[in-house]
């Protein structure tokens, strides 16, 4: 598991995320009415993480002669994780580099642990990039009402 975690990366860099978050708050403050500025600044941006996007990509070791013998077991583990309610949507990347899952998991570590147990992960043939997702926060702009 630790190997899987080492190899996998969460996409966002915290510092960049913070800087961008500050910028976004400034942005909303610029477009929002006085009422929204009266709230805590971060409340304009805050949306909970509700899903994780998991982008699985074959590693340099992931050659066909390595993954083919494991594919049937990989598929079954994927279906099991779906049936457990953890994988919400599954896709194959058409550039044939791997898979994309939308997961009903909010903790990237949990997702990496679950996916790292798959045969491809155990064999170091596939690694996952995790992007935490939430409701589309800018939609809040539509809620700003003109001052009464």
């Amino acid at each position, binding site marked *: 598991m630790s190997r899987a975690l080492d190899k996998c990366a969460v996409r966002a860099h915290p510092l960049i995320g913070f800087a961008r978050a500050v*910028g976004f708050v400034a942005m909303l403050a610029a477009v929002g009415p006085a009422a929204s500025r009266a709230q805590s600044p971060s409340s304009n941006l805050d949306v909970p993480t509700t899903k994780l996007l998991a982008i699985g990509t074959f590693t340099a070791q992931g050659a066909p002669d390595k993954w083919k013998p494991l594919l049937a077991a990989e598929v079954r583990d994927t*279906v099991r994780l779906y049936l457990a309610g953890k994988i919400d949507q599954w*896709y194959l990347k058409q550039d*044939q580099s791997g898979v994309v899952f939308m997961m009903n998991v909010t903790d990237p570590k949990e997702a990496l642990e679950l996916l790292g147990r798959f045969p491809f992960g155990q064999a170091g043939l596939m690694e996952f990039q995790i992007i935490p997702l*939430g409701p*589309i926060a800018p939609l809040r702009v539509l809620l700003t009402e003109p001052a009464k």
Partner: protein
Amino acid sequence: MPDNKNPRVHAEMLPALAAAVGPTTKILAIGSVTAKGTPEAIAPVLPHEVRATVRNHLAGKIEQWFFQTEGYGVVFIVNAKSTAEAHELLEKLPLGVAGMMEFELIALGPLAPLAMLIGEPPRT
């Protein structure tokens, strides 16, 4: 087979996987703000961006939309048959027109290896 511009794809596995690839049914669009997209530059455009995005949703083009909660950006799942079709749609969004947001586009299709469960393993 789509053009392979992804350096992480290893040429030797492509023929083996080709047989397992079905039709492109969705495009994953990961949107990030460019260097031009400063808060001051984005602020006046944002209300237009949101409205254009909602219109695309109502038109059935942007099927799912998410905000990246650990970073600034969006993720869309677009109903398009090719990355070119999705690109044309997304570059018309106001932030795209202004060069303040760009999208990484990943073509998606059904999880073809599921065929193994119905007794039809991918041909090699």
